[in-house]
């Protein structure tokens, strides 16, 4: 089975007077990890739930492999999903949870044991979920998503509650799944959390799309900036003002936005200004993300 494209077309959802998702269009392609990013309450979970047929769109469509999720013969085997607010019965064991959902995705008990081992819950599988930590519940959610070894995975804030070791493991695991040609969509409200995992980003804010591109293009948006340290700070400030550069104090020196290090260095040299540090700063993706989502104006 080919990994499906996830497509959201002019999608909209209103809850009473609240417009949770508005005119949203994007696609998620196989073989790549796509980060679905936005602040809390930006409509990510509602969008994911519309893709999975749990919430009915007010406008537009959300399609999996060209069809609504519910129209596939065994949808749970096509898309493995772990949604944030999905619950577990506290009185059921981890294994009991998986075996209850196994028949409808066409797998047996042995596979349930297998996915428990895969997510590192092997010995805990016979314990009741009521005694699980948040991280263990996240792992059980992931195990449920992986039951049928699905060609597409849709994970809502999967890093929540995982310890640092678990996050590193998850990162490698998602890269591995994408490398196998699967479609992987991961939502998060923190870019830094998925920055090292994703190939593509879809950024939404207030229910609307604000950016969709490969991660590298998002990085380009960050622009260049140069970090300079000069013993004569006043002279440096005067130089920046003279050249019309946007300069701001940063650490023990000055950050000059949208100007590269060579230009700053040449200008300082011409002005006879002594410099102790002159560095091109890496793109600060988090800044870009916050700017895009309106958290920083």
């Amino acid at each position, binding site marked *: 089975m080919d990994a499906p494209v996830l497509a959201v077309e002019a999608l909209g959802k209103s809850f009473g007077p609240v417009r949770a998702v508005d005119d949203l269009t994007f696609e998620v392609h196989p073989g790549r990890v796509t980060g679905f990013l936005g602040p809390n309450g930006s409509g990510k979970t509602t969008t994911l739930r519309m893709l999975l047929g749990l919430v009915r769109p007010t406008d537009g469509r959300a399609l999996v492999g060209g069809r609504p999720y519910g129209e596939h013969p065994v949808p*749970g085997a096509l898309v493995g999903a772990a949604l944030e607010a999905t619950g577990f019965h506290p009185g059921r064991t981890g294994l009991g949870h998986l075996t209850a959902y196994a*028949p409808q995705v066409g797998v047996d008990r042995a*596979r349930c044991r297998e996915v428990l081992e895969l997510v590192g819950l092997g010995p805990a599988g016979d314990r009741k979920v009521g005694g699980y930590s948040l991280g263990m519940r996240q792992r059980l959610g992931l195990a449920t998503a992986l039951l049928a070894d699905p*060609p597409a995975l849709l994970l809502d804030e999967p890093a929540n509650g995982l310890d640092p070791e678990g996050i590193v493991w998850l990162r490698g695991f998602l890269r591995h799944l994408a490398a196998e040609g699967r479609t992987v969509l991961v939502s998060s409200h923190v870019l830094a959390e998925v920055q090292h995992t994703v190939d593509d980003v879809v950024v939404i804010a207030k229910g609307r799309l604000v950016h969709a591109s490969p991660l590298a293009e998002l990085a380009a948006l960050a622009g260049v900036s140069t970090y300079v340290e000069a013993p004569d700070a006043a002279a440096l400030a005067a130089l920046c003002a003279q050249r019309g550069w946007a300069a701001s104090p940063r650490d023990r020196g000055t950050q000059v936005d949208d100007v590269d290090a060579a230009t700053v260095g040449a200008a300082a040299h011409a002005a006879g200004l002594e410099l102790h540090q002159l560095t091109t700063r890496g793109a600060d993706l988090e800044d870009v993300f916050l700017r895009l989502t309106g958290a920083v104006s």
Partner: protein
Amino acid sequence: MSRAALTPNRFDVALLAEWRKLTSTALWWVLGIGMAAYLAFMGAVLAFTFAAAPPSPDTPAITGVDAALAVLGTLNAIGYVFPLLVGTLLVTTEVRHRTLTQSLLVEPRRGVLLGAKLVVAAAVGLLYGVLGVLGLLATAAPVLELAGDGIFLTDPAVLRVLGLGILVTGLWAVLGAAFGAVVPNQVAAIVAVLAFTQFVEPIARLGLSAVDSLSGVAAFLPGAAADAVVGASLFGEISGGDLLPGWAGALVLLAYATVLTVVGRYTTFARDVA
């Protein structure tokens, strides 16, 4: 890439999933044992009452096969709260613990999910019926054999009452599941079931049967309809209310279940699951 090479019959796998959901927590056997124990206790009390009742000129003593029928006919009149609860919980736990999301991910056709729950409710209800009968017999049989005229287990009338009692217990569980689909809030549903079975219906049956023009209405209450199917009930004897014919009682129960199912399907099971 996918392991689900075959497309399984959706209803069959939904039934298996529902059965596993039911049996993977303690609820079903706790309620089942509770039902058996409660009926065992009531069976002992009733059997002693009939077996030890002194002859009285006012009320003719209930003896022989009538005593056995009177005791064994109480299965659903006394025990119906158990199947009703297990059926209700079959639906409401999914809402309470938010497992409904996962259930709808593996089966987006909501009618299939609800239908599977109703069928599994019927199955566990029938099982509860058997457990209840065993509980009743465990105490009533020895008491009636030793102190009364016997249990008459091979008498066709006794077998009929037991069989119909088990059948009605199954219907109660279906009714419970359908009710859970209408009132998905678990606490509200449990309170409603307990209040209705323990207070509202008994009082309504007494009250309605006391008013001539309304006495016919009481027969359409679910408990009265169930009594009609079984054809014997302690409560029926006491209230003296008129009961429907057995087949009509069964139809009334089915009508309740159908209406509740349809309402649940187009309310709880039609909503966004957010």
